[in-house]
C-alpha cells in the first residue's frame, strides 16, 4: 500500500519561501501568479492490514511527527 501525505502551511501563516518563489515568477513575467505557498510532499510505503486502519495510523503520524499542527495542515491519500 502506498500513501501520499501533503503538508501545507495554514492560511494566514507567513510563507517566506512562497513569497520568494512568487517574486521570481513575477520577475519572469508570469504576471498571472497571485500567490504561492510552498509545502511538503511525502510518499510512504506501508504494509498495513486495511485501508481504514492505515488511514487512522497515518493521521496519527501526521499529528505527532509529519506536520506541526500549530502552523501546518495535512492531507492524506491512500492508493
Amino acid at each position: 500500500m502506498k500513501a501520499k501525505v501533503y503538508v501545507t502551511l495554514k492560511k494566514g501563516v507567513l510563507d517566506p519561501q512562497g513569497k520568494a518563489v512568487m517574486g521570481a515568477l513575477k520577475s519572469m513575467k508570469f504576471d498571472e501568479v497571485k500567490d504561492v505557498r510552498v509545502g511538503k510532499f511525502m510518499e510512504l510505503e506501508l504494509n498495513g492490514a486495511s485501508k481504514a486502519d492505515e488511514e487512522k495510523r497515518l493521521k496519527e503520524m501526521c499529528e505527532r511527527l509529519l506536520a506541526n499542527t500549530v502552523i501546518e495542515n495535512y492531507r492524506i491519500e491512500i492508493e
Partner: protein
Amino acid sequence: MKFGIIVFPGSNCDHDCYHAVKHVFSQKADYVWHKDTGLKGFDCLILPGGFSYGDYLRTGAIARFSPVMNEVVSFAKKGGLVLGICNGFQILTEAGLLPGVLMRNRDLKFICKQTYLRVENNRTAFTSSYGEGSVVKIPIAHADGNYYADPDTITALEDNGRVVLRYSTSDGQAAPEANPNGSLNNIAGITNEAGNVLGMMPHPERAAEAELGSTDGRGVFESIIHAFSDCCKDHRHGHKTHS
C-alpha cells in the same frame, strides 16, 4: 549546582555550554547523551544549539522523540529549570514544553550576528541578574528563528510577562528594523507558564567572556545559579518551593 547538557546527534553548541558552565561559572556539568534515560542529580538541564538530526522535516521535530526527552519533560513538569538555546528552543516548542514554533527566517537566510535584546521581565529564574528593561548584546546564529504563534497564544505570553527577551535597537526600542528574522512582536525568548522553562534564540554561552566580544550573556547563567541557591536556602529552612 549541577548542569546537564543534552547532546543530540547534530548538537554543536554543547561544548560551548559546557565550557561556560564549568570553566566560566565553576559549576558542575555533565553531558547527557540523547539516548540516556534516568536523569539523576541535575539541577538544571540545557538543550544546546546545533542542527539535531540535520533539521530534517522541521527543526527539532525528530529530536523531540529522542529517549531523553521523556526525562526532560518530566523534569520540567516537576519544576526543574530547563534552558533551551537556539535549536534547544526549537526542540522545546516541538516537545510542547513551550508554545508556538520557530519558522524559517523572514529573509530565508542563515543569520549570524550580534543582536541587541531588551530584557522584558527580570522576575524569572533566568533573568533576575539583569535590570528590568536593560539592553544586552548577545549573538544569534540561526536560519529558523522566526517566532510564530496564534494570536491568543501571543496575547497570553504578553499579558503574563512570558516574553522575556525582545530584539531591540541598541537603545532599547523594539522596532521593526531591529527584528532580524521576522519574529512576531520581536520575540527572542519566552518562558512556559510556570516560569521554569526558558527558550531563547540568542546564544548566551557565546557572550560569557570578554574575549568573545560581549559578557552580556553571563546574566542568564548567573540568574540560574542564584535561583538555585535561593531554592536551596528555602529547603534548609523547610520551605520547599518545588519538588
